[in-house]
Structure formats: C-alpha cells, structure tokens
C-alpha cells in the first residue's frame, strides 16, 4: 500500500536530474485505471449475473420465488429442486427426470469423441506427412463443407442413415457427430503435425518405419496436448448439440439438451422455475466444469477454429 508514495518520489528525482526517463510512474488509482478496472468489473458482473440467478433460483422454494426478487440470495436453501430435476421431472409420459438425458448424452458423447478424434488424427497425419494426389481437393471440400448450413444436409443424412438401418439410434447420431466434427478436427491435427520437425519423420522413414508405426510410436506420443485440445472441443461441442439430437434420435434416446428444453418449455402443468433452473444448471455443468478446469487449453481449442491452415 505504500508503493504510490515511493514511486512518486522516484519520479520526482528522475525529473529533477535529467528529464523523464524509463516508464512513466503510475499511480494505482489514476483516472485511467479506475476507468479500465471499473468497466471490466461492471462487464464481468453482467456476465456473471445469469449464472448467479440460475444458482440462487435453483436453491429457492416456489413460494419464495413468487414473492421475492430473482437476484436475492435464497432465505431458506433447499436442494429439493435439484433432486426433482435430476430424478422426477417429466417429459411426456416419462417421469424419471434429467438423469435419462444425462446418461444418453454420455452414451452419445464418449463414443463420438473417441471416433471423431481417431478418424481426424489419422487423417490429419496422412495429410501432413503422406500426401497423395487429390488429397488437397478433398480437404478443401471438407473445409468449405464446414460452412454449409446443417439444414442443407439434414435430410440426405436421414436417408443415408435409414438405408444403413441406423436412423433413430445412438450409433447413427455418433456417426453424424463424427462426420461434422471432421473438418475442424482434421484442420487442427493437420496443422499440428505439419508444425512438427520434418527431420523426425524422415529419420523414422529411413529407419524403415511404416505409416502406422510412425503414427503410433512417434506422432502420437508427441501430440498429447493437441489431443487434449481436440477432446475439449469435441466434448463441449457434442454435449451442447441440440439439432442433431432432436433430428436423429427417438424421444427415449434424446440427449440432455433436448430433454432439458422439453422439460422447461412444456406447456402442461404448473411452471416450477426452481426445478427448471436446477435442470438448466445440471445440463450446463459438464461443459462448465471442463471449461474451468482446462482454462488455457479451452481457449486454444476455440482459437483453433479461427486460425486458418
């Protein structure tokens, strides 16, 4: 707390001797700092507000919600809404809560993440180190395909899935997620493998290692960070998906997001806002936990989409 004084004294001394030199001494509470921190704190509070409201609403009883103010902390904390959202909330005829959607989402997300990363990493490796004639053409189509609105491809995929007997099944949805994860993931892996020193690859070739041997023994161990980035990207993306879940699965296989929407936006019955908010938080919890744990890697994952190859 005594810093400003010391800095000022030093500043005066330098001034008196030979004019200003070095960085300008800053006071901690300069008008500039108040402006910067003030703005950032207000914006940060605004961004946190919905999370706060979700949490407090989910911990209140309905009588308290009807009387009170949505921003106020709960007077009497109750976990009943959470229990109800998880195990008892109804969608249509099923009254077993969001747990069903949660487990569906797990059964969709885990295989989709593994399959899509497997395909894209091998493919990216092939594109980076084993280029063949025509590879660039397909890759370009793939990248441009990422910009085509999903709506254009929704129905043709219904037909394809129906032909191979996977329409309405979780396996079908896993395939769809793998297909649509391919552009960004392939780009990610291709760029990463391209950035590795080429000598490494050449040395392995000279030693007689083949395609798969180099992939498993050299590339894979060296690229763990990029696999983590890809995993974060895919887990959050697939967990948060709504459109594919609603189009390609049946009601009892709906992922968590679809079930959440059906619970909250159902027209029958009395609206229980606390249960709704508990359900919303439960659905958002998985990506939020991943986000707060992964920190910088998450940023790297989303920035990967922005960096052109």
């Amino acid at each position: 707390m005594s810093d400003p004084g010391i800095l000022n004294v030093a500043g005066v001394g330098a001034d008196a001797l030979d004019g200003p030199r070095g960085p300008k001494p800053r006071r901690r509470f300069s008008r500039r700092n108040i402006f910067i921190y003030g703005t950032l704190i207000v914006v940060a509070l605004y961004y946190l507000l919905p999370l706060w409201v979700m949490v407090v609403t989910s911990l209140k009883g309905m009588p308290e919600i009807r009387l009170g103010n949505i921003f106020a902390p709960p007077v009497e904390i109750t976990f009943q809404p959470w229990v109800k959202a998880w195990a008892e909330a109804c969608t249509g005829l099923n009254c077993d809560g969001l747990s069903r959607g949660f487990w569906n989402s797990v059964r969709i997300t885990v295989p989709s993440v593994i399959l899509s990363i497997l395909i894209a990493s091998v493919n990216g490796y092939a594109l980076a180190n084993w280029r063949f004639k025509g590879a660039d053409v397909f890759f370009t189509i793939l990248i441009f395909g990422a910009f085509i609105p999903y709506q254009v491809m929704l129905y043709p995929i219904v037909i394809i899935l129906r032909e191979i007997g996977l329409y309405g099944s979780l396996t079908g949805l896993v395939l769809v997620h793998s297909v649509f994860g391919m552009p960004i993931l392939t780009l990610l892996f291709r760029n990463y493998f391209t950035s590795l020193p080429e000598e490494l690859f050449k040395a392995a070739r000279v030693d007689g290692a083949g395609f798969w041997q180099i992939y498993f023994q050299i590339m894979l161990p060296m690229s763990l960070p990029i696999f983590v980035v890809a995993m974060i990207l895919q887990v959050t993306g697939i967990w948060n998906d709504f459109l594919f879940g609603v189009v390609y699965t049946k009601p009892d296989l709906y992922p968590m997001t679809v079930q959440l929407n059906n619970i909250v936006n159902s027209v029958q019955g009395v609206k229980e806002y606390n249960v709704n908010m508990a359900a919303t938080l439960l659905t958002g919890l998985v990506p939020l936990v991943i986000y707060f744990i992964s920190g910088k890697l998450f940023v790297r994952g989303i920035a990967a989409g922005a960096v052109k190859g």
Partner: protein
Amino acid sequence: MAAARPLGLFRNINAKIAAIPMVLTALVVFTGGTIWTVVYSFTNSKLLPREKFVGFQQYERLWGTERWNVAIENLLIYGACMVVFSLVIGFVLAALLDQKIRFENTFRTILLYPFALSFIVTGLVWQWLLNPDFGIQSVIRALGWESFDFDPLYNADIVIYGVLIAGLWQGTGLVMCLMLAGLRGIDQEIWKAARVDGIPMWKTYIFIVIPMIRPVFITTLVIIASGIVRLYDLIVAQTGGGPGIASDVPAKYVYDYMFQGQNLGQGFAASTMMLLAVLVVIIPWAYLEFGGKKRV
C-alpha cells in the same frame, strides 16, 4: 506436393485408407447431400421425396409466405446487430484487457464462460431473466419505477432483440478472445513509436492497430456470420419462435417444414436459400483470402 511420386492406386495405400472417411464425408455427405437437397428443392415432395419437378414453384411459395419473410427479416436484424455489437464490444473488451492489467486471466475466464454453455442453456436462462412477472422488469418495478416496461419476449415487435441480448452474452467472449490474440501479435515498438509521436491512444487503435489486425477481423466476421445463419437452438429454447411467428428464423422454418409440417419441398427450398446466403458471405471471403493462391 512431391512431384516425383509415381501414380498408382496402391502407392501410399495406408494414407489413402486413412483418408477414406474424409473422402466419403467430402463427397457423399457434403457435396452429395448439398446437391441432393438443391435438386429436390425443385420438386413438390411432401411427406416423402418425390421426383416430380415443378420448377421454381417452391421458391415462389416460399417468398410468398409471411412466415418466411418474418424469418428473413429477423435474421437480418439479428445478424446486423450481432456483427456490429459483438465486434465493437469484443474489440473494446480485448483492448481493455490488453492494457497490462492485473487479474487478466480472471476477467478473461469470466467473459468467456458463457461460450462454453449451449444455446439451449443460454436461451432458458435469459427466458427466465426476461420473464416479465419475475425477472428484470419486476425487480425494477419493485424498486419503485412502476411504469418500467421491459418484456421483449412477449412483445412481437422487439422479441428478436431479446434473443440478441442472449446471443451477445453467449458469443462476445469468443470475439474478445480472437481480438486479444490479434492484439498480442502487434509489435510493442508500434505503441512506443505512436507514443513518441504524441498520438492519442484511441487514434492509434483506430488508424494503426485496427488496420494491422484486419485479417483477425475478417476471420472473426466469417465465424460470427456462419454462426448467425445457423441460429436455431437459441430461438427454440428462448421463445419457441413466438409470440406467434414473431421470432422465427430460417433454420427453424426449415426444421418445422421438413420434420413437422411434412412439406419437404418447402424445407428443401428454404435450406437452399440458406445455402445461398452463406455462399454470398463465403465466396468473397475465400476470394480475398486465397484469391489466386492455391492454399487452404
């Protein structure tokens, strides 16, 4: 590309096997699926796709439908506001975070967390916050301002702005992050030179820094734009397209006609229009970005 390599299907066979999923996706799903939808948008398919071609009839009906025109208008309003506000807010926040401040990581973490949430969660939270009986409106009225009116989700004229509030909350963090990455790439010497010349900071930003990170702006713009066209989940969760059809968007129109209205032809025509809209954005960008050079 190594030119010396001889041709032959079995040359480099492992790489080709590894690329089979990519080739199938690129050819069958992306190219094939797109062409299929465009072709069938010229038929009068109802419940099932049929090869009965009717020319531009579906498109005429599409543009003659009030609901589609509302959807397009909403998308234009939402899109324009989203682009302008998220670029401006995102850039300003990035510039503030770039002032060598303390707790930069904390601020960045807070500003970006909504991006980790799904549009469904975003839509439902804001539906609750904007609920006129319990949300922001009722809180401010309880403070004594009895005539305060803020119920965008129940007012057909401004409902799309209610959605915009939620969309901005979710998406600005990403723009900020991309901009911050761009600003970090600026040489510190430029700042020193500008300071020596006595150029005010805001002028340095507008006339020197922004032109320098133009590529970042363009990439960000493309990302925002492709997200806008896909706007669907947020609407479904927050308003369900209502009140009435007031917050409908093209993606919802397509879904409803394809999977609920059993009018496939309309759905195909509407999705082809969406494709066209994306091409209008993507082609000039691809041309600017890769024009002439063969590089992706």
